[in-house]
């Protein structure tokens, strides 16, 4: 075997952490809410290639783009705030990158913001550990007060189990439920849900199914789910996806 032991890398090749890290915010709207996570990843990669950004390619067998995504959205959920981090081989103006991406992306996945972030931040998927969701239960057989009572009861039980395919999933509600509010609106109940990443994710649909079970009512005719914010929780503060990233920045948690 040649190349053994470790030969070292050529000095002119930057390591991954030195490559410019462009963070892009984009939406997932209308019918593309039904796009699964893997299909979304492939689609975004193709948009990046079409935009002709100077993307960096990994050294693995599959020669993939160096890109990271946020926690998968449930299929059917829309979002105003999805993110990906892309490693570039050279820095280009963030605004220009955004404009090129816009032209190469279907409107339902339109990018809305782009900026460079520090290369050594942790992986996006683990780092963005807080999500805010707007839910709308259409023709719900319960009102806002019932919904809040139902959520309190689910919370008191501590743990929630549900079947995903044939697998039983256990969600620690106390650790993952960060906030819940409901209000009556025309045609149903509107809710704001805050979740925290901790082990198995708390899916809005799963929570509301459990609420319907504890209330002993049926389920709403339909549930619309939209992620409206993501953030990183650090030392009792929420850091926004685009920073500021120093220890003192961010919104204090009440």
């Amino acid at each position: 075997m040649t190349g053994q032991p470790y030969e070292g890398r050529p000095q002119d090749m930057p390591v991954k952490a030195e490559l410019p890290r462009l963070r892009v915010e984009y939406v997932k709207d209308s019918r593309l809410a039904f796009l699964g996570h893997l299909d979304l990843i492939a689609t975004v990669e193709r948009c990046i290639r079409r935009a002709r950004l100077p993307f960096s390619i990994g050294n693995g067998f599959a020669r993939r783009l160096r890109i990271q995504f946020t926690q998968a959205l449930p299929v059917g959920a829309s979002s105003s705030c999805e993110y990906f981090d892309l490693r570039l081989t050279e820095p280009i103006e963030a605004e220009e990158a955004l404009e090129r991406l816009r032209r190469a992306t279907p409107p339902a996945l339109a990018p809305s913001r782009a900026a460079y972030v520090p290369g050594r931040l942790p992986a996006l998927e683990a780092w963005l550990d807080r999500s805010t969701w707007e839910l709308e239960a259409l023709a719900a057989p319960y009102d806002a007060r019932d919904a809040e009572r139902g959520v309190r009861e689910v919370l008191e039980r501590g743990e929630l189990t549900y079947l995903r395919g044939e697998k039983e999933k256990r969600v620690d509600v106390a650790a993952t439920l960060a906030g819940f509010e409901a209000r009556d609106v025309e045609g149903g109940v509107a809710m704001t849900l805050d979740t925290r990443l901790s082990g198995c994710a708390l899916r809005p649909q799963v929570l509301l199914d459990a609420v319907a079970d504890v209330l002993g009512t049926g389920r709403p005719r339909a549930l619309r789910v939209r992620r409206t914010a993501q953030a990183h929780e650090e030392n009792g503060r929420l850091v926004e996806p685009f920073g500021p990233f120093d220890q003192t920045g961010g919104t204090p948690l009440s």
Partner: protein
Amino acid sequence: MRAKRENLFHLLEPLLPQVEHPARYLDHEWGSVQDQEGPFHLCMVYADVYEVGQPNLGVAILYNQVNEQEGMSCERCYLPWKDMAELMRGSGVPLLSLEGAAPLASFDAIGFTLAHELIATNVLEALDLAGIALTSAERDEDDPIILAGGPSAWNCEPLADVFDAVLLGDGEESIVEVCACIRDARAEGVPRAEVLRRLARVPGTYVPSLYEVRVDEGATRWGRAVPRAGEDVPQVVLKRCVNDFAATPPVAQRIVPYMGIVQDRLSLEVLRGCARGCRFCQAGMTYRPVRERPAEQVVSASVEGLLASGHNEISLTSLSTTDHSQCARILNDMNEALDGKGIRVSIPSQRLDSFGVEMAAAVAGGKRGGLTFAPEAGSQRLRDVINKNVSEEDLERAARNAFEGGWRRMKLYFMMGLPTETDEDVVGIARMAERVLEIGREVVGRGPKSGVSVSISVAVLVPKAYTAFQWAGQLHPDEVRRRQQLLLSEIRDRAIRVSYHDADVSLVEGALSKMGRAGFALVRRAWELGCSFDAWTSEFRFDLWCRAAEELGLDLADVACEEFPLSAALPWDHTSPGVSKGFLQREWLRAVEGVTTPDCTRESCVGCGVCPALHVRNVIQGVRS
């Protein structure tokens, strides 16, 4: 009655959360033609799910071709999976096109792509979901005109009752002519029967209802199709052929799917046709002559196509890509142009010689997955029978080069049930696999960590129309099983893995390939009993196919295994890919004697008849090696 053209996506949307893979029904992909003004509307249907149908190059070519015409538009439609079909039926939603979400029954014309025989029940399923009568005879004046084309249109007789017209051969020109013919005839307000008569005058268009089946002396039990009394239609409908292939747009796939599809890459058709003359191969006869694109066009179109689509893989497709006279140059230039972009180039079939291995190395870069060869038969004698012009030495040299080139896993394709096959030939498959394994071990080493392995995949020959084997019967399933056992018992090394195609599936395919127009009763009954998605192993119901056959007084094995006399009029003799029947008869006789026939792109003309019949010729860019 023609359904109203309207967007019904709002009826489909509430069903999306309830089905598997809702991405199948989303449309709005990058590159799809959303502006569908018409006023003439065609819908191309691939009667399988989105991820199977979307990669189809034929649909892509015709989609572009029609959408580029002033006043014509073309949408796509795929068959919903069973969960969605059930929900649609339950809530009264008809089959919709993708782009406009318009009911299929509202279109002027609908074009089915017949990719293989087993799509037959899905064609009926699609029409039924669309609320369109299954047969041409049952359709109303205003109903859409139902068209078909594609590789399996060669012997489309089992579905002849379904289609109003069938387009034979290359469709890029004829689809436009056919659409224009329908548009003009409709504008004049002529009756449906007259529209079909006019269609029969468009060259390459076969209108089944204008022919009747006559079972007489000289025909097989399935009869022959002859023009109906008083109909001015050709005795034999000759296919269409685009001679200036290089003038057609090289990149047909402009739609970039959202969901993962079965061939998730950009395809570029580098050449059309193959003249190697393998005697079992239908495509080798029906796509003649051979027409290559020039190397510069392939390379520049690949780069442009990849930039426009964002794909990270490109496949240079054809029946035999490594036969392209400029293959080495194309791959070399592509590697240069795409270096550092994280793009994979693939070629679908490997030529069984050193050049094939060289080309495989050229596309693999530094990577070595598995390498696939298709010797097809286990002995030189039988390879001569099928005209697979490779020798034992070719194979051994290719295997040695491949192992020396770093490959460890070798996959070999064979067929069972080839005419004149004996037990010796079957055992020869085992010996050949062992020989390849032995070469691997000589090159790489014998240790358990050498990783050398050989897998062999054995299909059953389904004799197809317009091949030299069209007169042959399929091997009886009992005998298939006995020979499979024989082969298994001859394989002693655990580094050789054997897999078989399902003999039952091949039997249904074989029966449908033989039957002629009478096959429709079988297809229809099988569909009524619940058969659909027959090409999916999980969905194929042999018991239902047998029951359907039994109800019609047929036995599938009896049908598939029947031999036809060489002089018989065949159920498909009234359509022609240009290859003469005399040539095929000669090929059959040479096969039985084990005499091979050369490739006319390398040696002289073999007299297949295509060039004079279609006024075309082979177009080879360089010199073939």
